[in-house]
């Protein structure tokens, strides 16, 4: 595998990790908000 391909793999992994982190953070907040709403 060439250095360019390795760099491309790392770039894609990083962007996917960031996207997944944002999704998880969003759902963490959403479940908190749902809990509060269901208690109300």
């Amino acid at each position, binding site marked *: 595998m060439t250095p360019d*391909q390795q760099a491309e793999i790392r770039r894609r992994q990083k*962007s996917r990790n960031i*996207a*997944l982190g944002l999704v998880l953070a969003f759902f963490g907040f*959403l479940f908190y908000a749902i809990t509060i*709403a*269901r208690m109300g």
Partner: protein
Amino acid sequence: MTESAALQLPAEWRDFFALTKPRVMSLVIFTGLCGLLAAPGHINPVLGFTAILCIAMGAGGSGALNMWLEADIDARMRRTAGRPIPAGRLRREDARDFGVALAVSSVLMMGLAVHWLAAALLALSILYYAVFYTLWLKPRTPQNIVIGGGAGAFPPLIGWVAVTGEITAMPLILFAIIFVWTPPHFWALALFVKSDYANAGIPMMPVVRGETHTRRQILAYSVVLAPVALAPWLIGGAGAIYGVAALALSLLFVAFAVPVGLRRGDAAMIPEKRLFKFSVLYLFALFAVLVIDRVLSQSGALT
């Protein structure tokens, strides 16, 4: 980069997003939201948002499962050859796993956070599209889009049930509007991408029964759509604003369908493309007016 080299690279998050068919999802979200807003009663805004998110996730999961199941067909059609799997940007199994994860989590979240009847309808809509339509109907009969139209008709029904918790005449009429709207909408598209479907071996109406028959069917469904669209007003489920708008929009729909129904096609297919574009606008406008009518009547502005 060769296709095999591209397949060794991990897919981008954009490719996963593309699996959810974002353009189709926009109509799904909109009609689901309109069903939710037009329903009588109140829902906590957080739970309302969650219901729409679940509808969107369910639709996205269906889209991903559809692309997993139809990757071979997509590769043979110009319109779909650039999708992530046939283009070699994403592995087929990843699309399956992503679709199953979205579908299951959307149904569970809808049930736990909003309402189990809405969750059951969401599960039914996913199975209807991914299994009944994609696997069974689409490759077998030229009526595929007529019966398969039911899959796209679920969102306003689910949105309504998320608020009320019960299935009544009004949400079933909203379901029927999209059900009857789908054939002329999709057959107009099928007329100008006919060669694509023929190459892929999909028995779409223009391929199997011919253009003339398809054109007559488009006109017939467009005429039937008018009374179905007026039904919310006729049964007292919507007010005069909706009734007048539904009548005007439906007459326009028939006006766009007449040149398609009565002519022979040519290479340009301009009336067919016009009808397809107007059909999208029609559905957006009809459901938007339903919500506006409901909001105005609730606020007392019409009394």
